[in-house]
């Protein structure tokens, strides 16, 4: 009896109970698709996070003060920021942007109030260093900063809240009693977390210090390197200069009153976190595949048990054990291969859509693994009861109820 004939028997066996075959395949389909999609979602969100971190600028470092209680000896000052612009000691630095930020400043325009979550005072270089381009209007100039002109560039959310349907450029807004002129609107940024990055306003450092923050310490200093590869060099240059300025003994680095945040090291940490996240999602999906596998096992057991009588008839008609075993193995294989294949297809189609705000990115190895596991489960748990049934004496199989 040729292999092709056995395949035809199997197809006939499957089509004899179309609903059950379809449901079995559905179980495998869901298991496989879940594994592939969940891993893809984990991978996609990891990729999205790293994309955003890269968008923040991998060629910048952020210097922040670690001092608590505002001790003046450890605070970052404008003087230190200026000291960093030193072609001799720090040749790799492209720009330095001192930043003061005031949280929750209320902006008012013609009776409409809006509490801006971050009100940033800085220099024009900040727009380039933090990859925050201006969409409409213009950013303020270095002259604005030296003159302390009260101009402001607002984020999309602020523009929508205060100026619904109106062009905000050249409008006057009140911030803590002082009038600011809107000169530009920032390009919309995608969210990186819970905070809305578009709910912001950027004004000249001097103006913000006058109106909101006072002439105290800076919140942070953003330093931009000439080249992403020079970030490490810039970091050491910055710490050398700051150690000088703050009179810190460079040997006891653990007690420095400032902290340098590096976007690429942030990226590394984030990637590790995201990998853990993907593994976790994969584990959850693997459990669903396992449950799906138990479903397959159950249906295969039922199928074979229910057809024990048929196996008895076939044996009585002279079917060798091998042919019967092959028939059921091929049936199980077809079911799991078709189900697994459809699951892969479903996952590929599903990955074209955004899932909970994440664009899934398929991991090829997850496709192979999920498909392989489903086929292995189908083969093993379909084959086991079939082998048992094929070993029965015909009369026992015929009497089986």
């Amino acid at each position: 009896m040729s292999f092709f004939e056995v395949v035809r028997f199997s197809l006939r066996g499957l089509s004899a109970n179309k609903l059950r075959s379809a449901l079995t395949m559905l179980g495998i389909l869901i298991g496989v698709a879940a594994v592939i999609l969940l891993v893809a979602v984990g991978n996609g969100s990891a990729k999205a996070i790293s994309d955003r971190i890269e968008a923040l600028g991998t060629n910048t470092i952020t210097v922040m003060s670690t001092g608590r209680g505002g001790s003046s000896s450890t605070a970052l000052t404008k003087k230190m920021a200026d000291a960093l612009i030193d072609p001799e000691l720090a040749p790799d630095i492209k720009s330095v942007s001192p930043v003061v930020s005031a949280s929750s400043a209320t902006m008012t325009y013609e009776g409409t109030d809006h509490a801006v979550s971050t009100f940033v005072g800085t220099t024009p270089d900040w727009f380039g260093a933090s990859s925050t381009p201006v969409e409409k209007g213009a950013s303020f100039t270095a002259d604005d900063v030296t003159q302390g002109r009260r101009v402001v560039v607002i984020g999309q959310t602020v523009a929508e809240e205060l100026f619904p349907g109106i062009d905000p450029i050249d409008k006057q807004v009140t911030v803590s009693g002082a009038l600011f002129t809107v000169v530009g609107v920032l390009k919309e940024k995608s969210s990186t977390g819970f905070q809305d990055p578009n709910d912001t306003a950027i004004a000249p450092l001097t103006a913000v210090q006058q109106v909101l923050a006072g002439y105290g310490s800076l919140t942070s200093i953003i330093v931009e390197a000439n080249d992403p590869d020079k970030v490490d060099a810039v970091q050491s240059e910055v710490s050398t200069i700051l150690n000088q300025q703050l009179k810190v003994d460079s040997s006891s680095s653990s007690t420095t009153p400032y902290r340098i945040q590096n976007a690429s090291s942030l990226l590394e940490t984030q990637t590790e976190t995201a990998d853990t996240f993907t593994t976790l999602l994969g584990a959850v999906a693997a459990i669903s595949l396992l449950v799906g596998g138990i479903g397959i096992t159950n249906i295969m057991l039922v199928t074979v048990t229910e057809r024990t009588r048929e196996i008895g008839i076939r044996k009585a008609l002279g079917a060798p054990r091998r042919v019967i075993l092959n028939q059921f193995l091929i049936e199980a294989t077809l079911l799991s291969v078709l189900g697994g294949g459809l699951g892969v297809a479903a996952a590929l189609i599903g990955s074209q859509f955004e899932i909970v705000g994440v664009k899934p990115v398929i991991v090829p190895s997850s496709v192979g693994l999920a498909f392989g596991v489903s086929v292995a489960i189908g083969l093993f748990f379909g084959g086991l009861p079939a082998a048992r049934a094929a070993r029965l004496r015909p009369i026992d199989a015929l009497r089986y109820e």
Partner: protein
Amino acid sequence: MTRPVLEVRDLKKSYGEGEATVHALRGVSMTVHRGDYVAIMGSSGSGKSTLMNILGALDIPTTGTYLLDGVDVGSLSDAQLALARNRLIGFIFQSFNLIPRTTAVANVELPLAYAGVKPKERRRRALAALDIVGLADRAGHEPNQLSGGQQQRVAVARALVTEPALLLADEPTGNLDSKSTDDVLQVFDDLSAAGKNIVIITHEDEVGARAKRLIRLVDGSIVTDVRQSPIELAPVGAAAAHAKVQSVAAGHLAAGHGTVARGSVYAAGGRHTA
């Protein structure tokens, strides 16, 4: 004489162990020669189905030898047994045992498929076998679209399509009405007339009366073994069998035919108590 088609010697079969042992067969010996049409009768529990399953190589005896067409079945491997069931035996079940949701012709083709016959040849022979049982026009019907009698005739076609040395039928008419019973028995008569070797199990007198030889089984042993009509002639047919059963029931013992009479009385008695 040629080699007997079937020969069993001191066949014993018991189930269970120790105190609970049930002896289904207690040493059955019989020989069936070519061209014979044997009916095995017995009440339920007489071991006739056990005997039939052993003859059909579906079950194995506890002790004793079984020669099928000269081959010792007990010595065959699993694969050889499958081959023997396929080539030497055509088995007909009481409950038809057609494969569900499969057309009549596909059911009949099945043993040929296991024998490795090419699809075209298979289809031709399956249709020819269906024609013999008078169901060529029902070839495309599935079992649930056929009456019981038709299903059993499809099963008969399936049993004889491989041209086996021996046709075994286990109560083939047990689930059928009298009309369908007549149809199926007519097929057996025709097959016997065509020279097939048939062994049939039944508990119906009318079925037993049509066979050329009648064996009665009580408690796992043969009690009578009667030649009812010559082996080389066609079976007596429905009318003669009916007449004989009627006359026995009426109490007319056929004079000078003692063995037949004894067997028939026994049959009649069995029917009264049943």
